[in-house]
């Protein structure tokens, strides 16, 4: 297949511009696939445009950055400016998760789908309230039941988890083995 056969006749510059416009208005990270569909372009052209857009922001030291989050593209402010942005928006940092919740979340993120007894085995404590908190914050979702005695509920992380932790997808999490005895 001739990959230079574009369905539309946009130049790279034009494509970069329209991709930028769409990512800007989207309130969710926008996938390459969806961009290709909407713009009637092929995937490769979109990817080239996105890369070019990201470079442009970097090269001119923009206040914005282009990132891949939860499998899609997102424009957001650079972290350097968080103080001024916060002042403007008049927001405070939202309440951080407790250590227990973070540990529970870490276990779920790395071992999903995982049951409550399995979480207990690793953490050594009951995690019921942590799980409740994580469900309320939509960071985890139920993922059916494990087909063993008692058919316990299984949990996994959600798309919201990827967004809130700035992850492209689960593979972006460092390998759990990397955490082996850091404090030796």
């Amino acid at each position, binding site marked *: 297949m001739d990959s230079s056969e574009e369905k539309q006749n946009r130049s790279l510059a034009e494509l970069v511009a329209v991709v930028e416009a769409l990512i*800007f*208005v989207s*309130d969710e990270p926008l996938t390459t696939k969806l961009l290709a569909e909407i713009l009637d372009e092929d995937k490769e052209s979109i990817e080239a445009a996105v890369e070019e857009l990201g470079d442009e922001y970097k090269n001119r030291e923009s206040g914005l*950055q282009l990132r891949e989050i939860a499998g899609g593209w*997102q*424009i*957001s*402010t*650079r*972290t350097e400016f*968080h103080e001024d*942005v916060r002042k403007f*928006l008049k927001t405070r*940092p*939202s309440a*951080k*998760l407790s*250590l*227990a919740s*973070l*540990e529970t*979340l*870490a*276990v779920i*993120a*790395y071992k999903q789908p995982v049951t409550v007894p399995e979480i207990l085995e*690793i*953490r*050594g*404590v*009951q995690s019921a309230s942590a799980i409740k908190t994580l*469900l*309320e914050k*939509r960071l985890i*979702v*139920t993922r059916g039941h494990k087909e063993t005695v008692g058919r316990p509920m299984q949990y996994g992380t*959600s*798309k*919201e988890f990827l967004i*809130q*932790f*700035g*992850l492209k997808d689960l593979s972006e999490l*460092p390998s*759990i*083995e990397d*955490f*082996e*005895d*850091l*404090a030796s």
Partner: protein
Amino acid sequence: MEKQQEHFSFDFFTGTPQIVAESADELKIKLGEFAGPLDLLLYLIKQEQANIFDIPIAKITDEYLRYIRLMKTLDISVAADFLVMAATLIEIKSKMLLPREPSEAEDEEIDDPRKELIDRLLEYEKYKSAAQMLYERTTIEQATFARGQIESDENNAEINATMFDLLTVFQKIVTRHKDEVQMEIHREEISLADMIKTLKKRLFDQIELSVLEFFEEMQSKRELVTAFVAVLEITRTESVKLIQSKTFGDIILKKI
């Protein structure tokens, strides 16, 4: 008996950090920082500057028990999990004290009673570090902002429904049917779990679902209540939106 002093401290070695509290409340806060017995154990092992692969079980068990006793003295409720670990430590300690069979001691690999605990600690330590990594990520993420919502058909014409609106719809149906004679033949009462399952499937298939229609399908008051709870549950645990176009109108359950 000597009166309990208010100044408590653990000092294992000179030069290592101590837990010092001026009052019971302050100690309560410091104790609360441990995420569980494994966390506490790791702390004690590090305090002792002990080798995790060769834990001085007797000493660590004693420190652990001292800690638990201190919590009880201060009337801090000790979670059951901490007590289970205490029992485990005591068991390991006593196993270590038993004299070994002469034949075993020679060349065969002896089952170290500490092995399982060590494995658990190492495994836990990984997730504790992973949790720290996640914490650091949120710190970064909280410093970056994406654009807020832009007015569009999606979020303008429709007003997001609240729980009260949902309750109103529910009430409407109950009132509408209260005068009806209950059917003689009931179908088997459906459980909440099955109701949720059914609702989920319908929602995934149809994307949008009229709450009014869904409630109308219920054949008894009990089923209606179950359906209502199912809708609440789905709203809580799944990525769905409740939309109401007209005040007091129908509510649409929409998968997002």
